[in-house]
């Protein structure tokens, strides 16, 4: 089976000390390694304000992990561990490889088309209209 890529985001309680967060990340890494997953990157977003209250808290410590695996067993195990962890308030796993593949496809397609018709796309590229920065739809809101 082909390799799948997942985004794993989890939110720790904001009062968790830094070493404890590292411990959670370490357990995730170990669990992934045990089940044959590969951690691509670990990115700590740090304390962020959440859009709504979770466990009566307004802030959370976000950690973003990208991992690769050939089967979904890893995710099952990771989610189980995150669920039992006291520090973790919320988590989300998203399989992203298919969307990334789709993105690649569009990109390739566009490049091919640009290569085929250089005359037409060449002037269009520098003259690309600058997107309006203003948030237009917010004015239409109720």
């Amino acid at each position, binding site marked *: 089976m082909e390799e799948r890529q997942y*985004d794993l*985001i989890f*939110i720790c309680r904001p009062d968790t000390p830094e070493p404890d967060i590292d411990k959670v990340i370490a357990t995730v890494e170990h669990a992934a390694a045990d089940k044959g997953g590969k951690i691509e990157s670990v990115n700590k977003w740090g304390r962020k304000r*959440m*859009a*709504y*209250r*979770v466990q009566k808290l307004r802030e*959370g410590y976000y950690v*973003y992990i990208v991992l690769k695996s050939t089967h979904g067993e890893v995710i099952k195990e990771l989610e189980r561990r995150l669920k039992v962890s006291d520090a973790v308030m*919320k*988590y*989300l796993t*998203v399989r992203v490889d298919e*969307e*990334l593949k*789709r*993105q690649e496809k*569009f*990109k390739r397609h*566009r490049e091919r088309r640009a290569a085929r018709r250089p005359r037409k796309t060449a002037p269009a590229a520098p003259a690309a*209209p600058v*997107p309006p920065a203003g*948030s*237009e*739809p*917010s004015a*239409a*809101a*109720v």
Partner: protein
Amino acid sequence: MSEGHVPQQAPPAGPGGGPSGSGPRPQGGGPGRPGGPAKRGKRSFVRKKKVCRFCVDRVDFIDYKKAEILAPFIQERGKILPRRMTGTCSRHQRWLTVAIKRAQNIALLPFAAEL
């Protein structure tokens, strides 16, 4: 001579041969709608054609992690704005909806505004 009397058999009238169609249909009309085209000659105004912002920017993938690019597409109460408001094309609206829903799940965007 043969009798010219042909026994006529009246076909049995079907049950309920009344007026077909059920229920009183409102005969068009009613209070005339105001502002017909006859009254004021021109009421056409030029509406600016909205274009999909993602198409302009050539976006191939809408990232659910970037709440700031999704935020203009939700109402203050947290609802996702329809295409007719934002002018997003159908393909990008589909991606956008998925991205917004993912962002909501990880508390980057609200499900509904509080209070």
